[in-house]
């Protein structure tokens, strides 16, 4: 099962309005310049407690049927998923171990065989269900801003 790229693009563009408002108010940076139906990606730059920059890429193929692949990348986007690109406090596999990250699911090589991709909007425990791109950005904003240093 999949979604036409044009459909995903329309949904992403709609949600990016809320992302842009949140990012602007928070002093973060949003780069969606290359976003198109052939490239359903955007990047947000966060700062940790020591004002060290971290870049997170959201690759949104089949969004919103399935969650994006959310991964830390370097500023030039030539490296991804390395421990030295992660802030402290994240799953050391390394992985953003949340239902909104497709990488966390066992079917994508992640640790969670107990999660179903179609249920990606469900909350963790009794927390807020992270069911939009703006909430994903806010969740990461909170975690990164409260962290110090890098994982490696």
């Amino acid at each position, binding site marked *: 099962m999949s979604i036409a790229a044009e459909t995903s693009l329309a949904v992403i563009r709609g949600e990016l309005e809320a992302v842009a408002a949140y990012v602007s108010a*928070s002093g973060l940076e949003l780069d969606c310049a290359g976003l198109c139906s052939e490239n359903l990606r955007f990047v947000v730059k966060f700062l940790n407690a020591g004002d060290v920059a971290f870049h997170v890429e959201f690759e949104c193929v089949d969004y919103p049927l399935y969650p994006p692949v959310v991964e830390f990348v370097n500023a030039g986007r030539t490296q991804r998923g390395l421990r030295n690109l992660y802030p402290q406090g994240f799953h050391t596999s390394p992985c953003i171990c949340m239902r909104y990250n497709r990488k966390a699911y066992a079917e994508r090589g992640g640790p969670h065989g107990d999660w179903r991709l179609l249920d990606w909007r469900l909350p963790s425990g*009794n927390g807020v269900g992270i069911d939009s791109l703006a909430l994903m950005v806010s969740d990461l904003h909170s975690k990164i801003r409260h962290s110090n240093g890098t994982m490696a």
Partner: protein
Amino acid sequence: MNDSTDNSSIRTEEHPHPPRLLYIRIQTPRGLWSLDEPKDASKRPEYPPSTKIEQVIIDVRSVFGFVEQDSKYTLLRGGEILDPGRTLASYQIKDGTLLVLSVQGGNA
């Protein structure tokens, strides 16, 4: 005939003013809380300067339906994390200041 008014019996009454209210704006992942957004908000972000940050967090959560207790809610000004136990005045927050509510959904 003396037309002048005798004011000697008029005295100044105590005339306490209500505390001046600060209005702030708060951006959340579900939208902006301001004096006119969202349209159907049950309350508006106007506070005495002595209001604690924790009360503002409670209010903005209620406006946007962030009812879940197991999430972490933080109010920020730019990159500065605001201490819930401190007051708006202690941060010298002024009218129109834009704050941010970050919502953390669970463990990473």
